[in-house]
Structure formats: structure tokens, C-alpha cells
């Protein structure tokens, strides 16, 4: 990189004034982006990657300020520029796309008008041709029937479509640099790939530079020329994508890399290398041949399509009633979980996997079908009654969001003790405490943390409390509802291993609900793939993942960006060559 | 002055283009002002017909000014030099001539008198009107009965122009009762035209419209906020009044009423707290006229039917414990005629008279002990919220004083509309109220307030054979013109009322009127409302 970089961030430090005093979110960061280059900034939450990008655009929160260092964008000193200079720069020279695209658009303004606002602000169009240009911008991001969609509001579009609009917005004024901040988070796997491909294609066409901010090393590896790894506000490693994956130099990078679930590894591979070697060797053995513990037959769940309002409206409507007044969230699902087995339930959002698990959990009642648990039809027992029956303790659950699933007013010990007090057989304060401490030890939670409240615990610690609570009654079946979705990869690695260990020790069965095939693969013996309330494919994990039969499974698999993780992407090598 | 300038400048700004000469406009305004009387008061009429069901006191004022009666009263000079109605001298209003015989009175009507719609007033109208008063029931019928006028047969049309009232019995109140507000003369044809089968007396029509021959007519009435009355240019009941137009606005806040007067925006107001009158008087910017209520007083009543007030000793103890002077000073600011600390016995045959009691806690305590209540008792003192300005501090003082002789009272505020109902149940143990009679005769007051014949204003439930005998004696003596017997009986019943003391008079309230210096012609009437006919503005 001999030429002057398009963006040159030197020694950047960003400070935030908070209740605990000044916090340095970004410290002495150096980043250079050359013209036409795509770089990735990778890090876990709190690493300062987003703050860095906000600093570049100078759109930090009120509390934050650039304390030290300089940011130069094609010769302009961003830190010193006036607000009106910055406004000229934003959207016109540097643009940004965000995660959660629907929230990133003004909910009450037509998308076409939102694009027009940008075009008009930067004088890229005048009143006469602005509509034409906005439609053109929509067309460029492959939105079908752009002239109609011009009048759409964000809520009328799918998430992927919204992200396209955001991209159109970002590209409307043909900027030189685009910053994409986790552009695929919150989108379904299949959509993720389309969006990423679109971004790559459009930016390459225009010869733009791109900064991709992500927590996903796989994603960065697939799409970037260079990757910058950040941890706790500092850049710890900068290297070409291929280099960083073949020979990561920093221990943190190595840890991060290892922790990323990918094909061809075992659960234990996720953990950092330990001097003492693996604690426990767990092979991926053949599925245990236990008798069925849970058998679900033709399970159906229907919801009324709308509330009272709808029925009122139909009361006064003339003509025939609409065909279906109900919506089937789960449509005739049958499967079994054997003793000691882990079964993965995979699908994109809205496929009915959570509804299925809630019914099995007996948190909601089913519309039709049979749920046999250990020879008993538990589907027959209303959900309200089920809560107080002894059988309740044999089916437990670990929730998706460890924060949400802990009562903020209960200490960790109280949370773990709650099921024991209600359904367990341990009596007396001391015995209860002893049992809690045992459980804490079992899940690797330091006993001294038992008296803390959830907000005083880290994400991983909260996850452990949730797991301890689930195993407190020694259940036969645990439903894991995306137990690691809210966790960083390194924490996820630890928690997944913990779950595997516990299963071995306690001989439980798992029904693992997840959208992430790579994670499912690590933990499950069998996989069930759902779509639209129905099962599309079922079979042993290895078979389903490596020789999928259903088209949908194939589509899901191909959408995973880090499928060929260890092999450097061909494209990136080419791009790397071009940029140097 | 400042305000005027301000107004002028904004008006000029606003109307600079529209109004060519604001000066002319203002002078036109000023001229109308001279012939317009602006009255502000707390409440307004709910019915402009005194015969109406539940017509309130402000309604009397409209009736008084918009209707004529056969006769009215002459004026004399009152206690503070103001014109004061002369209860003994009558003046002709619609009648041209009155001839009182032994058992009847004959009236000749004014020949040229017409109603406000131009129809002449005839004896037929007079009979119809008086028939209506004795028939419709409620207050008008009751008031007519006070003058022994009870039956339609008593009213006789002699000819178109001559009318006779036959007396049912000899009663010296009969003629005065024809000069009160109730026996107003209605345009019978007009009202009958608007009557219905369900409403033969046309009450619904007269509730909202005036149908009289009086000096004024209501031209606009927004209930609760404004009444506008215009002069009847063809009035024959007397000399044409000076004031062309009367605007009567309801201003609920006393402070605002005072401010309006002080700033010169209102011409006259009569419902102000006593303190405001005292201060306005001493400020000297306004004319203030205070006249004691004729035949009336504010009192503390006690229910004599039930313990503990059935015991005369307790009542006397209360009479000795009341903080009379404090009330005069702090509540009335001196605007009242004391009715306490008088002689042992009535020295003249008049009413109201001061009683012998005065604040004496030692005597009060001794009487309480004698009555068997050395430690006192608990009770409630009630008052009419409508007159809270006087009643509330008065009751607070009474409560405090009675507390000193062991009587613990709780103060019970009763909204105006319910107060009468509550009083008429005759169960309130302790209360304060004002009673005043239109007809200024002692026996009239006593019949209503002390007679054992279950009189409605005998709210104490007082029963005494001696009292009844004395009152009846006085009535008979008066009708017969036996002055000595009458005087004896009057002194007798006053003394008895003060010994048994079922109600303790506190003071004779003043009727206060405040008006601008350029307003003159205020006269005191028994009904204590304004008579617009005498007013003029300089």
C-alpha cells in the first residue's frame, strides 16, 4: 500500500462519559483503508469495533468524544471538520449500513422519499428528477418493481428487502467508502448470503472501499481482503484474511478462531488449547440406542389469525367469510427423542421450532396430536395443571436469553433453588444451600457468585445459572432453546462443552432448538429440519449435513458463509493482489 | 388609567383600518353606559316568574321589576338616611284607587295601563293573576295565605276596571300582603295562549318570559351568567325610570366582584363579604349603604325535641357560651346589629330585640353542670354552604367556644339546595341560619318561627302552649286594633322565647349595597333586592 490510503485512522482514542467515570471504548487504534479495499473489523461485543466506525463518521453518542488521534478521509481531517463539512461527507462520500435494517429506516416515511432525502441533501438530484433517481437506486439493489416499492413503508417489506433499501440509501450518492456494521445480523441465514453477495458485488462494481464490521470470523474471511481483530478497544492484530486464518499471531485471535464452530471439528476443538490437555475425551460416538423417551405424533398448533377486532370486523362484513381464520404454526410434526440422545431442531425464524418446543415443554397447549413422555400422554394435561405435577420436574428447559430468563430480583442461589423448593425433595435452608452450591460447582459457577443478582453477573455466568436451574431437578429431558444465541463465540464454546459434559454425567436427553447448523452439528446425534411448520428432513447429523436430501437443507447449508473456512477464498486472494 | 391606554392602543391597532374614528365610537359607548346599569352578583335567577316552582331569590328581583302589583309602598327615610319602604303607607301601582272596607277592599285600575305587548290591563287579568297565586301551590300560595288570601272566590271582578278582594277573616296582614312580590299581575291572555292542558297556568312560558306590565322586560337571559332587561317605555305604574337598560352579570368570585367595583367596571353589587364592604366604605371611592334586615336575624337553632337540647338549662348554657362579640368583630367586621346583652325583659313591643345573654363561660359551665352534663357532649353544627362567608367562620368560632364548656361539635356544611330540606326535617341538633319575614310585624315572625302548630320555620321543633296563646293573642289584638293587648302579648312572647331560648339570636344582618359614586336612587325594600326604577346615573 504505497498510495495514500482513502481512510487513515491514527492513534484513535474514543472516550465516553458514563456513571462510572470516563470509559475508553477505543484506545490508540490505527486503521488504513486503501481505495477499493475491503477490510473486516472483527471482535466480540464491547471490542470497540462499532465505536470506531461511528467515530469515522462522527456520529458518536452525545456522551462520546474523540479524545486523541486523527481520522483523515481523502485529505479531510474528520476530527477537526465542522459539522456542516461532516454533513457533506456523510452519505455522499462515506456511507454506512446498519444491523437490524428495519429499525434503520424511518418507519413512517415512504422508502422512496427516504432515498430522495439523501439525494436532495447532497444535491445529486433536483426536484424534477429526484423520483427517477430514487427508483433507479432501488432498481440497482435488485428490488423488483421499484416504482411500486418506492411507495412502500419499511413495515411492508421483509427484513432482507429492508436491508436492500438501506444499501440503496447508502449507495445512492456513490460514496467512496461504505461501512457495513453487522449487515446480516438479525436476518435469516439464507437472506444473509444474498445480502452479503449484493454488497460485495455493488461495491466492487463501483470500485468502492468497504469496512465490514462483524463478530463472525467466517463472514470476514469470506468477504474481506484484510481483517483487523479488536479486543477491549484495541487492535490486536491486522493481517490479510488468509494470513490471519492460517497463521493467527495473537493468542486472542487464535482463541476466537478456535471457538468458531465450523465443519470438521469436535466440541473440544472449540476450547482454547490448555496446557494440561483436554479434560475429558468425548468422542462423537454412534447414537445411543436408548428406548424412546419422548414421542411426538402429528402435533398441530393453530392460532387465530387476529384478535377480537378481526372478528368484529368480519361480523359486519358482507359476503363469504375468509377461508381460513386460523394460522397453523405447527402442522403435523412427528418425531422422537430417545433416552440419552441429543436431537437438533433446526429452522429459520417462524418455522415453528419454538412453538413445537413450547408444546413439548407443556408451556402452551397443542391443538391436536400426541405428546408421549415416558409412556404417558402429557399432551392431555392442560399447561396450567402441568406446572404443579411431579412429572414437571422431568422436563426442563434452558432459555435463549440468559438475562431475560433470570428474575432481576432474585439472587443466583434463589434462582437455582426455586425449582427445588417447589418440586424438589430437599428440605431446610442449609440442605438447600448445599444443593445449590453443588449445582454451581457442577456447572462451573464459582460458589461466591451465588449471592449476586443477575445484573452483577456476566453473560456466561448467567447462562450457567440457567443451566444449573434446569438440571436442579435432575430431569430426563432438557429443551435447549438457542441457549447460546445471545453469547459471544468464545463463551458459546465453553457453554456448549459444559452442556455436553452434563449430558454425559447425568444421562439426560436434549432437544436442541437452533438456527445454527454448525452448532447443532457439534452437539446433536440427530437433526430435524423444519420449515413452515413442517419437518422437511430428519436424520443423523452427519448424514443431513453432508448429504442433505431436501432442497431447503441444501439451501441452508450453502448459505453458511464459513463453510470452507480453512481454505482461503479464491476471490479474496485475487482482490488482495489487486489492492497491493 | 394605564389600563384604558392599553386598551385604547390595542383597539387602535386592531381596528385602525376598520374603524375610521375610534373617538366617536367611544363616546357612543359612554352615552349608552350612562343609561345602563351593570349589576354584578354571585347568582342569578332560575325562573323569572315568582309563581314558578322553586323560583330562587334572584328570581324575585326580576319579578319585582318586570311586573306590577295593585299597590306598593311609599318611601320614607331609613336609619342611615337612605330611602326605606314605609310599611304602613301604601302607594298605588296598577290601581288608581284603593278603598278598604270592613271585610273587603275595592280597587279601581289605572285606565291607560297596558301590558308590555300593548293589551290593556283589566280586572280579569288581576283576578286571573291572584287566582293563580293562591292555586299553583308552593311558595306563592303559602305567601298569599300569610295575608289570609287562600281562595279564588275572594277575588271578584266588579267590572273591567274595578276589582274587589273579599277578606276571609279580619287580618291586618291582608293589605300588606297585596304589596309583596307574589301578587304580581300577569297578562292573562298572553299566558293562557301559551298554556297547555298539562300546564293550565302557563308556568312553562312565564318561567322564561316576562308577561307583565312592569317597568322593565327581560330581553335576554343566559341562565347562570347574564340577564339583560330593557325599560318598558309605556310604563304607567310610576314615573319613567332613568335607567334604560339593566345588565345583570353573575360573577361567582367575590374577589372579582369587588375588583370590578373598585376598578369602576361594575355599577353596583350587593353580595360582597362584609369585610369588603367595610374596606370599600373606608376607602371612600364607592357609596356603601348598609341597612339592617327588617324583621330578621341570624341565630343559632337547637333541636328541642331531642336530648341534649331538650333541656332548657343546656340551651341557656349555650346562650351564655356563644362568642357574640368575636362574631361581631371577626365575622361581620361590625356590619351587623347586635342582638345580645340586652335588658332582662323586653322593654318595647318590637322585633327583633336584643336578648339578655352575653358571653359568660362561668355561668355556662355552671348551667351545664346543673343540666347534668358537667363533661359536655358531642354534637354537630350545620350551616348552609351557600352563605359560607359568614357561616363558616361563625361556626368555627362557635365550635371553639362550645368546646370550652365541653360541647364538642363537628361542623357540617350542607349545600344550599339541601339545607332547606334538612332544616324541614327538624332533626338538625344545632345549626345557624337567617330568617327574615317580608311583612314586618313581630307576630308574623313568631307565627312562622315559634308557633307550636308545626310551623315550617319552627325548625327547632319548639312546642309551648303559653307561647301559642301569646302569639294567637297578639294576632287577634292586631286585627282588632287593640294596641295595648298587642303590646303585652308581643312583650310576653319575646320574653318567653328568650327564657326557653330554643333559638339564640346573634345579630341583625345588614343588607349591604356598594355602588359607584355616580349611581343614585337605591332604596331598601323588605325583599332586600334592587328596585331599578329608582336608579339613575350621573
Amino acid at each position: 500500500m504505497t498510495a495514500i490510503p482513502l481512510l487513515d485512522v491514527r492513534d484513535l482514542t474514543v472516550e465516553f462519559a458514563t456513571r462510572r467515570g470516563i470509559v475508553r471504548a477505543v484506545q490508540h487504534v490505527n486503521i488504513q483503508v486503501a481505495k477499493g479495499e475491503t477490510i473486516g473489523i472483527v471482535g466480540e461485543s464491547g471490542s470497540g469495533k462499532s465505536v470506531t466506525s461511528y467515530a469515522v463518521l462522527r456520529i458518536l453518542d452525545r456522551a462520546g468524544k474523540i479524545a486523541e488521534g486523527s481520522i483523515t478521509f481523502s485529505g479531510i481531517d474528520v476530527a477537526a471538520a465542522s459539522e456542516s463539512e461532516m454533513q457533506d461527507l456523510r452519505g455522499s462520500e462515506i456511507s454506512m449500513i446498519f444491523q437490524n435494517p428495519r429499525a434503520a429506516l424511518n418507519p413512517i416515511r415512504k422508502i422512496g422519499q427516504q432515498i430522495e432525502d439523501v439525494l436532495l441533501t447532497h444535491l445529486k438530484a433536483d426536484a424534477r428528477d429526484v423520483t427517477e433517481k430514487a427508483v433507479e437506486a432501488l432498481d440497482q439493489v435488485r428490488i423488483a418493481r421499484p416504482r411500486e416499492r418506492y411507495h412502500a413503508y419499511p413495515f411492508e417489506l421483509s427484513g432482507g428487502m429492508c436491508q436492500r433499501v438501506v444499501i440503496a440509501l447508502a449507495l445512492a450518492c456513490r460514496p467512496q467508502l461504505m461501512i457495513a456494521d453487522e449487515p446480516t445480523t438479525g436476518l435469516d441465514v439464507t437472506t444473509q448470503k444474498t445480502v452479503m453477495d449484493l454488497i460485495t458485488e455493488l461495491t466492487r462494481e463501483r470500485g468502492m472501499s468497504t469496512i465490514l464490521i462483524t463478530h463472525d470470523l467466517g463472514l470476514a474471511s469470506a468477504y474481506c481482503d484484510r481483517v483487523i481483530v479488536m479486543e477491549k478497544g484495541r487492535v490486536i492484530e491486522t493481517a490479510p484474511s488468509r494470513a490471519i486464518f492460517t497463521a493467527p499471531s495473537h493468542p486472542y485471535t487464535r482463541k476466537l478462531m478456535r471457538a468458531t464452530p465450523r465443519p470438521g471439528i469436535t466440541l473440544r476443538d472449540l476450547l482454547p488449547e490448555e496446557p494440561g490437555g483436554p479434560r475429558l475425551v468425548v468422542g462423537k460416538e454412534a447414537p445411543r440406542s436408548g428406548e424412546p423417551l419422548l414421542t411426538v405424533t402429528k402435533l398441530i398448533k393453530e392460532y387465530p389469525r387476529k384478535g377480537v377486532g378481526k372478528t368484529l370486523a368480519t361480523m359486519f362484513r358482507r359476503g363469504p367469510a375468509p377461508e381460513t381464520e386460523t394460522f397453523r404454526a405447527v402442522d403435523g410434526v412427528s418425531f422422537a427423542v430417545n433416552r440419552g440422545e441429543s436431537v437438533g431442531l433446526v429452522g429459520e425464524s417462524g418455522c415453528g421450532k419454538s412453538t413445537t418446543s413450547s408444546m413439548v415443554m407443556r408451556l402452551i397447549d397443542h391443538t391436536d396430536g400426541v405428546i408421549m413422555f415416558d409412556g404417558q400422554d402429557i399432551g392431555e394435561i392442560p399447561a396450567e395443571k402441568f406446572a404443579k405435577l411431579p412429572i414437571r420436574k422431568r422436563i426442563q428447559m434452558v432459555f435463549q436469553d440468559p438475562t431475560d430468563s433470570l428474575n432481576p430480583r432474585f439472587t443466583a442461589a434463589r434462582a437455582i433453588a426455586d425449582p427445588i423448593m417447589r418440586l424438589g425433595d430437599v428440605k431446610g435452608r442449609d440442605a438447600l444451600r448445599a444443593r445449590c452450591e453443588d449445582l454451581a460447582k457442577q456447572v462451573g459457577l464459582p460458589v461466591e457468585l451465588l449471592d449476586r443478582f443477575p445484573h452483577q453477573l456476566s453473560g456466561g455466568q448467567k447462562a450457567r445459572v440457567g443451566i444449573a436451574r434446569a438440571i436442579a431437578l435432575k430431569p430426563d429431558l432438557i429443551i435447549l432453546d438457542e441457549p447460546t444465541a445471545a453469547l459471544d463465540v468464545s463463551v458459546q464454546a465453553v457453554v456448549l462443552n459444559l452442556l455436553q459434559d452434563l449430558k454425559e454425567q447425568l444421562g439426560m436427553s436434549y432437544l436442541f432448538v437452533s438456527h445454527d447448523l454448525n452448532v447443532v452439528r457439534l452437539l446433536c446425534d440427530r437433526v430435524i429440519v423444519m420449515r413452515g411448520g413442517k419437518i422437511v428432513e430428519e436424520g443423523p447429523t452427519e448424514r443431513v449435513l453432508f448429504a442433505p436430501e431436501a432442497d431447503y437443507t441444501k439451501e441452508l447449508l450453502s448459505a453458511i458463509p464459513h463453510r470452507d473456512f480453512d481454505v482461503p477464498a479464491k476471490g479474496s486472494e485475487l482482490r488482495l493482489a489487486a489492492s497491493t | 388609567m394605564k389600563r384604558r391606554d392599553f386598551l385604547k392602543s390595542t383597539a387602535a391597532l386592531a381596528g385602525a383600518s376598520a374603524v375610521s374614528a375610534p373617538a366617536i365610537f367611544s363616546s357612543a359607548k359612554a352615552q349608552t353606559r350612562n343609561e345602563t346599569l351593570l349589576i354584578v352578583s354571585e347568582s342569578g335567577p332560575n325562573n323569572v316568574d315568582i309563581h314558578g316552582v322553586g323560583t330562587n331569590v334572584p328570581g324575585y328581583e326580576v319579578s319585582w321589576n318586570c311586573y306590577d302589583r295593585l299597590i306598593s309602598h311609599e318611601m320614607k327615610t331609613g336609619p342611615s338616611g337612605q330611602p326605606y319602604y314605609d310599611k304602613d303607607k301604601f302607594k298605588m301601582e296598577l290601581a288608581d284607587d284603593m278603598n278598604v272596607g270592613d271585610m273587603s277592599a275595592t280597587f279601581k285600575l289605572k285606565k291607560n295601563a297596558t301590558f308590555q305587548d300593548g293589551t290593556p290591563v283589566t280586572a280579569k287579568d288581576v283576578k286571573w293573576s291572584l287566582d293563580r297565586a293562591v292555586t299553583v301551590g308552593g311558595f306563592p300560595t303559602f305567601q298569599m295565605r300569610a295575608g289570609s288570601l287562600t281562595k279564588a272566590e275572594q277575588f271578584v271582578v266588579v267590572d273591567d276596571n274595578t276589582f274587589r278582594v273579599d277578606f276571609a277573616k279580619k287580618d291586618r296582614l291582608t293589605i300588606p300582603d297585596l304589596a309583596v312580590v307574589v301578587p304580581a299581575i300577569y297578562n292573562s291572555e298572553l299566558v293562557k295562549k301559551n298554556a297547555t292542558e298539562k300546564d293550565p297556568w302557563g308556568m312553562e312560558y312565564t318561567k322564561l318570559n316576562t308577561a307583565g306590565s312592569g317597568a322593565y322586560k327581560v330581553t335576554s337571559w343566559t341562565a347562570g351568567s347574564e340577564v339583560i332587561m330593557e325599560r318598558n317605555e309605556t310604563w304607567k305604574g310610576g314615573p319613567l325610570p332613568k335607567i334604560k337598560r339593566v345588565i345583570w352579570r353573575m360573577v361567582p368570585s367575590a374577589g372579582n366582584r369587588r375588583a370590578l367595583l373598585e376598578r369602576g367596571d361594575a355599577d353596583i353589587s350587593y353580595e360582597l363579604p362584609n369585610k369588603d364592604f367595610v374596606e370599600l366604605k373606608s376607602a371612600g371611592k364607592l357609596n356603601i349603604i348598609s341597612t339592617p334586615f327588617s324583621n330578621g336575624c341570624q341565630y343559632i337553632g337547637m333541636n328541642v325535641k331531642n336530648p341534649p337540647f331538650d333541656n332548657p338549662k343546656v340551651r341557656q348554657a349555650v346562650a351564655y357560651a356563644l362568642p357574640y362579640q368575636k362574631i361581631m368583630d371577626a365575622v361581620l367586621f361590625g356590619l351587623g346589629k347586635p342582638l345580645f346583652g340586652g335588658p332582662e325583659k323586653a322593654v318595647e313591643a318590637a322585633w327583633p330585640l336584643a336578648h339578655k345573654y352575653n358571653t359568660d363561660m362561668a355561668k355556662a359551665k355552671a348551667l351545664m353542670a346543673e343540666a347534668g352534663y358537667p363533661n359536655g357532649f358531642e354534637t354537630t353544627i350545620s350551616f348552609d354552604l351557600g352563605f359560607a362567608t359568614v357561616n363558616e367562620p361563625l361556626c368555627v368560632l362557635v365550635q371553639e367556644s362550645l368546646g370550652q364548656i365541653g360541647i364538642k361539635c363537628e361542623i357540617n356544611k350542607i349545600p344550599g339546595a339541601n339545607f332547606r330540606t334538612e332544616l324541614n326535617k327538624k332533626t338538625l341538633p344545632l345549626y345557624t341560619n337567617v330568617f327574615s319575614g317580608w311583612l314586618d310585624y313581630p307576630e308574623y315572625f313568631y307565627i312562622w318561627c315559634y308557633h307550636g302548630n308545626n310551623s315550617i320555620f319552627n325548625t327547632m321543633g319548639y312546642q309551648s302552649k303559653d307561647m301559642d296563646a301569646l302569639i294567637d293573642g297578639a294576632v287577634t289584638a292586631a286585627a282588632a286594633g287593640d294596641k295595648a293587648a298587642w303590646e303585652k302579648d308581643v312583650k310576653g312572647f319575646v320574653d318567653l322565647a328568650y327564657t326557653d331560648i330554643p333559638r339564640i339570636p346573634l345579630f341583625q344582618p345588614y343588607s349591604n349595597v356598594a355602588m359607584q359614586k355616580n349611581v343614585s336612587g337605591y332604596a331598601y325594600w323588605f325583599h332586600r333586592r334592587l328596585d331599578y326604577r329608582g336608579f339613575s346615573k350621573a
Partner: protein
Amino acid sequence: MTDTPVQAPTHGIAAIIKHSRYVIAENKVTGFSFGLFVLIVLAAVIGPYVVPYDPLASATSVALKPPSAAHWFGTDQLGRDVFSRVIVATRLDFFIAVASVALVFAMGGLAGVAAGFFGGWVDRVVGRIADTIMAFPLFVLAMGIVAALGNSVQNIILATAIVNFPLYARIARSEANIRRDAGFVQAARLSGNGDIRIVLTQVLPNIMPIMIVQMSLTMGYAILNAAGLSFIGLGVRPPTPEWGIMVAEGAAFMVSGEWWIAFFPGLALMIAVFCFNLLGDGLRDIVDPQRRT
């Protein structure tokens, strides 16, 4: 979500004090209102024992005297010491505020939690009741209740509570509704807790902070409401000192220049309401920094 250790925690009351101290230091206005609140409570508790005069004793010889060294706030029509009356009134007004707020919390808060948590017909019934009350002009409803039931302190409290019912029911309902499907509620169900127990141990404690904020804000309103009722003659019985009634009594004297009779109780009224409102804001900062309005 990171797995970085959270900084050393402080526990229970110590944490609250620390946090409160931070909020007070950060926001001078809140600190000021805390100070005022302490003063008001002090006046309510010891006021009647330390005032210079008997608040009920009339002294007509010194009636209507302007503020002086002997009578700091002057005297009223009956010569009673306005200062003593204002201070003594604190207790009653404070009591009305606290009692009505406690009552409405018991009625509206619980009904709202039930509505939000159980949904269905409970929700519809509570919603209808709240809607019906809301459709009344609230102050007039309060007047109506007091007029119909009689003007006693209990009825004023009841009326104020009823008038605030929809507000509490709605807040409690939406807060409970958010938590109805929260992970920890589901987890409690899995632990074998019945609905009632879940409401009491899981949901209610979590919405308390929001409710306490609301209670502080409504306390101000309760005082205003009681004062308004007194002003139109439906308040507490004389001669009990109460701010609203004192303003109403003093209003008539304002124009004649005896401004102090209405002014000081009015000022006390304003300060108390002001204090409760600011305090509510401050509490909200402590409880829920995001939601500050």
C-alpha cells in the same frame, strides 16, 4: 454479551445508597427535591408539636395581621396563626396523599397486574372499568364521589384513588404484560410455580420500581385533587387546617390586600406537589434511567 467479569458488586441497601448518591450528585434538582421531601416528612411528623400557636385557636384581636416576627405568615380572619396552620396541615395533606396512593396501588396496581398477566376476560373487565373511569372528566368524577358519599377525609382519599385507578391499572397492566412471557416467568412455571405465586413473587416485585415512581408522581396529584375539592367546598371540614381549604378561604381576601392568607398555604401546596413530582422524576432516574421523561 461478553464474559468479562462484572466489577465487584455491592449489595442491597448499600448499592441503593451508592446509586442514589450518584443520582443526587448528578442531578442537583433531584437532590433538592430529596431535601424538600425530608422537610415535608419532618413537618408532618413533628410539625404539630413545634408550631408556635394552636392552629385552631382564634384570636380576633389580632385578626388579619400581615406577616410579622410574631406571626411569620400573618394571621387569618379569626386571628389564627397562618404559619402554624400551614405546618400542621402538612400532616393531613401528606396523609391524604399517601393513603390515596396506597389505596389506588392496592386496587389499580393489582387489577392491572392481573389483567396484564392473565389476559382474557380479566383483562377485558379491568380494561372496561378503566375506560369507563377515563371517560369521565376526572376531577368532576372525584367531586361526584365526594358529593355523593359526603365530605370526609376517607371519601376524599377514596375519590382520589378511584380517579387514579385507570392510570395505575394501565401501567401495571403493560408492565405485567411485558413480563408475562419473560424467560424468568416461564422458568418459574417450569419450576412448578402456580400463576398466583408467579404473579406475587416474580412479576409484582419487578414492576414495583415503576409503580413507586408512579406513586410519587400521583402523590402530588392527590394533594392537588384534595385542594381542588376543598376549593369548591367539598373538602375536609373546617376548622381542620388543610392547604386547599386555606387557599379557598384566603382567596376572598386576596383582592383586599390580605394576600398572605391564601399565598402561604398555596405556596406550601405548590412546594409539596413540586417536591413529589421532582422526586418521582428522580426515583425514575434511579429505577430506570432510560425511561426518564
